[in-house]
């Protein structure tokens, strides 16, 4: 079964003084997310990522189109019991403590009474907030609120998670924790659909990604396919500033940065290049195939003209 099936969801806002100017926040979107995958939803600011998530959560209503989540309608409470949602810049009842909020939400999600406080403590520990359970949410920092947001999303052990920019506002360790958490969720067989701007995160985590721009879907693909394309070139890095003369003949593209040299040569010339380095007694640092980065794919989808330009991670 598909975890998410988006069937032409479209959202047009009427803006301007008279509300007559249409603003296409989301053009008819068709997208499927399989059960058990981590799906990244990429796009620049204002692309329509949050709009899509709000439509899926039933917070705003589509101008046209529908979607099904776990095979059910968007307003089906049985479906909502099985999903978790982290909104962009989450905000909570600031007069509650973190534990009170989570116990309240657990109750609304149908968690049994005797389980609630254990669940609350468990998820707070999971998101790295074990010591502030009794603190009122008005006293939480931005990153702490983000963590509470993640905690409330996974609280009731949902099958499917929607995260709108899960890494936003987090410190480096926090980001790593969230990456680990998402991997763990996948390991437990859950589906994660998340939006992000951080391409290396998406590259490391996602099974598939979609790129959206100006409300329009620009491309969907498996990360493995998008990045595996070895383009018949290798990258050689060695220490020093010397470029052996033989490299000229190999058609190598060399750059000296600080105390290292980086050269890109075609695969056929790889052995000749290594021999040249050995003969010149230069110390090899690394040899690796040149891969397409997700960033290159992303840029190619947003700016078709620059598709050929090589972008390094």
């Amino acid at each position, binding site marked *: 079964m598909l975890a998410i099936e988006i069937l032409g969801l479209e959202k047009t806002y009427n803006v301007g003084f008279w509300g007559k100017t249409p603003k296409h926040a989301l053009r008819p979107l068709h997208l499927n997310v399989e059960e058990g995958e981590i799906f990244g939803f990429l796009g620049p600011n204002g692309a329509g990522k949050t709009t899509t998530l709000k439509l899926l*959560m039933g917070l705003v209503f589509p101008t046209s189109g529908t979607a099904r989540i776990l095979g059910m309608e968007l307003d089906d*409470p*049985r479906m909502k019991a099985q999903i*978790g949602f982290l*909104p962009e810049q989450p905000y909570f*009842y600031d*007069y*509650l403590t973190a534990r009170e909020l989570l116990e309240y939400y657990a109750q*609304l999600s*149908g968690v049994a009474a005797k389980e609630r406080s254990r669940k609350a403590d468990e998820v707070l520990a999971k998101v790295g907030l074990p010591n502030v359970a009794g603190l009122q949410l008005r006293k939480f920092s931005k990153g702490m609120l983000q963590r509470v947001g993640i905690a409330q999303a996974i609280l009731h052990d949902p099958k499917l998670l929607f995260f709108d920019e899960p890494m936003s506002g987090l410190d480096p360790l926090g980001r790593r924790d969230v990456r680990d958490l998402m991997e763990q969720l996948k390991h437990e067989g859950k589906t994660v659909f998340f939006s992000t701007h951080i391409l290396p995160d998406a590259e490391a985590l996602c099974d598939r990604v979609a790129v959206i721009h100006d409300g329009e879907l620009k491309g969907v693909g498996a990360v493995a396919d998008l990045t595996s394309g070895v383009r018949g070139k290798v990258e050689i890095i060695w220490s020093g500033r010397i470029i052996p003369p033989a490299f000229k003949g190999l058609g190598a593209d060399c750059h000296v940065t600080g105390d290292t040299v980086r050269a890109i040569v075609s695969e056929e010339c790889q052995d000749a290049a290594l021999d040249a380095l050995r003969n010149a007694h230069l110390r090899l640092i690394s040899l690796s195939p040149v891969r397409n980065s997700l960033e290159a794919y992303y840029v190619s989808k947003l700016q078709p003209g620059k598709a050929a330009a090589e972008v390094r991670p």
Partner: protein
Amino acid sequence: MKAAPMSRVFPIALNTFREAVRDRVLYNLVAFAVLMSGAAILVGQISVGIEKLVVINLGLTAVSLFGVVISIFIGIGLVSKEIDKRTLYTLLSRPVRRWEFVVGKFLGLVGTLVLNTFFMAIGVFGALLYVAHHFAKPDAWVLVALYFIILQFVIVTGLALLFSSFSSPLMSAVFAFSLFIVGAFAEDLRGFARMTKGITRWIATGAAYLVPNFSALNVITPVAHGQPVSGQLILYNTAYALIYATMTICGAVLIFERRNLK
């Protein structure tokens, strides 16, 4: 996952109550207590046989005004504040239907008002005891007057919630307060309407009956004079308030169900 709606409505109501308490809404009771004791002491010194009349009149009027102010100022924010602050995002992505949220918020505020009125009632009876030294049988009618005042809060809260579902908080407060004032003269309005003719009469009558009838819910003066309240009026007022409030809540739900959250 076939839990009854009440299993969501009730926790939402409870949380609304908790919010009101933590936002120090019940602090109004301090002001009320000061007012009542001041009045009791002052009236006790005059002592010309109208102490009870003054205390009941003043006490019940204060209960009503304090409560109406709370109904309006919290009522207009019940739903709109949660939309503005986006606390609804993580609530409505749970198995909570929008109507359950609205009804829960409404019941939470009504519960707060009932408790608030309960404490104020203690204050009124305390002042009564202070000036008269003992309770008389007709004092029991004060309880009925208090019950009617709570029915007023139920209607006013419903109105505040309804207005706030389609207009700004300030306008909602103005609308709700105006209707509270106009509603106090509902019986007179109905009288005026009967005096007009033709199409005007239809419109005026319709308008007069649309306005909440707060004059029927106000029995402060007769009760202060020790007069009883008829069982029929109690029954009629109860049904009226429940129907009126239900209609306002239905209206608010209908609007909120279609609304795009910002």
